[in-house]
């Protein structure tokens, strides 16, 4: 790693965030198999360094727009694991009262604006959030996560243009994991260097190794600073998902060898090994993180189990607002 060394506490925190995502999602798989969780569930395992590196650099006033693969973003942003697990259980104690499930996590308190399962659907929303911040003289940044598959949608292009045209504080984060469901990037983009597409719209851009949390952090810090000054930024994070696209994927489209190769660059191992070699973190630190996280994950399950079902009589609530407009 070529980037500046974090101190012990910073390093421990980055490790902790990544391990939280990993263990939480492993528990999700278990609960999916136990049929406690249903529907579509997309795992972030392998991509933890991206959400961690970026969201740790955000301020509380900043906003986040994410996709259906957003457990990691939600956890790092500070949403409680219990409220996320309960959401996936479909309980009313969930972060969206069980209305949304895995793909639609929301939390107004932390400006976590979803959980959008329409590919590309979040980008215009991010433009609007940033526009509102700008028009009201708030120095907030909107961080918008999307996969490389979304780059083919018109919204990607329309949104980059608007962001640059209107000088909006948006950070576009493309999580390039090489596949959109089962379709490899080379089958869907005539020009596969995604960051460079920013050039066409005058959006500053960079590529970063998405398996290296320190590299992501450093790139994010610069990109966020640029965005905060009203210059949108497109950051392409090269990463890889270690698991199937969703729980229904037979993975016919990629070889086991390819997955094995990428797993050698596991973002958690990569980071911990480097920190250990640099005497920043010890095995004891790792063990303590695992213990803490195991408790948090177990607690999240207990919280979800103890949760309650929203009465069916409430079925048609939240179609219209229950408060009067201001």
């Amino acid at each position, binding site marked *: 790693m070529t980037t500046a060394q974090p101190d012990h506490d910073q390093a421990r925190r980055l490790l902790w965030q990544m391990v939280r995502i990993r263990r939480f999602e492993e528990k999700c798989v278990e609960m999916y198999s136990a049929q406690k969780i249903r529907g579509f569930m997309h795992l972030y395992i392998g991509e933890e360094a991206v959400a961690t590196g970026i969201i740790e650099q955000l301020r509380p006033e900043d906003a986040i727009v994410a996709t259906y693969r957003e457990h990691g973003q939600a956890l790092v942003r500070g949403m409680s694991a219990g409220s996320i697990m309960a959401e996936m259980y479909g309980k009313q104690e969930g972060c969206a009262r069980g209305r949304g499930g895995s*793909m639609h996590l929301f939390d107004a308190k932390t400006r976590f604006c979803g959980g959008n399962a*329409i590919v590309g659907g979040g980008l215009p929303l991010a433009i609007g959030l940033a526009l509102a911040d700008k028009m009201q003289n708030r120095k907030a940044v909107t961080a918008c996560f999307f996969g490389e598959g979304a780059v083919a949608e*018109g919204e990607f292009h329309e949104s980059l243009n608007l962001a640059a045209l209107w000088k909006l504080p948006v950070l576009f984060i493309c999580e390039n994991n090489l596949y*959109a469901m089962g379709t490899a990037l080379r089958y*869907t983009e005539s020009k596969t260097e995604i960051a460079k597409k920013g050039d066409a719209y005058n959006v500053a851009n960079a590529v970063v190794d998405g398996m290296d949390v320190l590299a992501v952090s450093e790139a994010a810090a610069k990109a966020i600073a640029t965005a905060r000054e009203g210059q949108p930024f497109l950051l392409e994070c090269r990463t890889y998902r270690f698991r199937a696209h969703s729980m229904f994927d*037979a993975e*016919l489209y990629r070889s086991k060898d390819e997955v094995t190769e990428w797993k050698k660059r596991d973002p958690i191992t990569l980071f911990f090994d480097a920190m250990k070699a640099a005497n920043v973190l010890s095995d004891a630190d790792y063990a303590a993180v695992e213990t803490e996280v195991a408790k948090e994950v177990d607690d999240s399950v207990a919280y979800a189990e103890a949760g309650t*079902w929203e009465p069916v009589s409430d079925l*048609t609530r939240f179609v219209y607002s229950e408060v009067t407009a201001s």
Partner: protein
Amino acid sequence: MSTTDPPKKMTYRDAVREGIRSALQNDPRVFLMGEDVGHYGGCFAVSRGLLAEFGEERIRDTPLAESAFVGAGIGAALGGMRPIVEIMTCNFSLLALDQIMNTAASLLHMSGGQFNVPLVIRMATGGGKQLAAQHSHSLEGWYAHIPGLKVLTPATLEDGYGMLASALADPDPVLIFENQTLYIMEGELPANAGPVDISSAKVRCEGKDVTILTYGASLPKSLEAAAKLAEQGVHAEVVDLRVLRPLDDATIMRSVAKTHRVLIVDEGWRSGGISAEISARIQEKAFYELDRPVQRLCSAEVPMPYAKHLEQAALPQVESIIAAVQNLVRSHG
């Protein structure tokens, strides 16, 4: 295959795949394009194996660009090909709604009859799998609002197989809605299965007391309800609408004239839905045949919730169909 061969056991998914395969075999102008139809094997595994059999030219993976590849399908149809465009689910078809409505459905008319669009678009529809509000809606009734389109809702293996060939033979754009929950339905496809008519509704179960008009995933539910009602001595006639545009008024009115009581079961929303259209036609054309006001059982007017108990409560179910029929029959004056 000859007519003496025994019927083949398969799923609805298999039947749809066989329909696509036979279209590809029979006409070199036919090709399939859409997201993940090739290397992934189809979002719902419908096209699994077809890439190996027919190659990348004819099983064409597209980028995530619904508007562009639906538009490309329209252009290819104009240019003499016979594209089958697959959109993963009807919620995503909204990204291509402009192309479907403003171009595919309008071109023939706008061009004074010069440019017809022989395009087939297949998409999955419907709820019941806990996929929440961006993957679970039933928009077929909504598309049936649009002149220039034909809207098909295959709910049996024969229709899953045979409607495609008929749609491809049609000179105009045809939308085929495959309900997600039907893919695993098992049944038998007759050895001589082939193109089916795409203009008429079909009586799937004869009855004299009440007519249930339905389609898609509500068909098996209605048939199950009818079987249970029969045990109670109530004989429901179940009509599978099959085609939502153009609606087969004749078959509908014939059944109304026979039973004098009607329940419409529709997984779409009630307000402004296809059920409202059918109800209006009945009162226009068969008002004096009715013993009771037409009743409707539709999905609750809510974006589909994720939680299972709420989703199940939002959709028409066997029990709610039975209750609605009992109510219609009981209150007979």
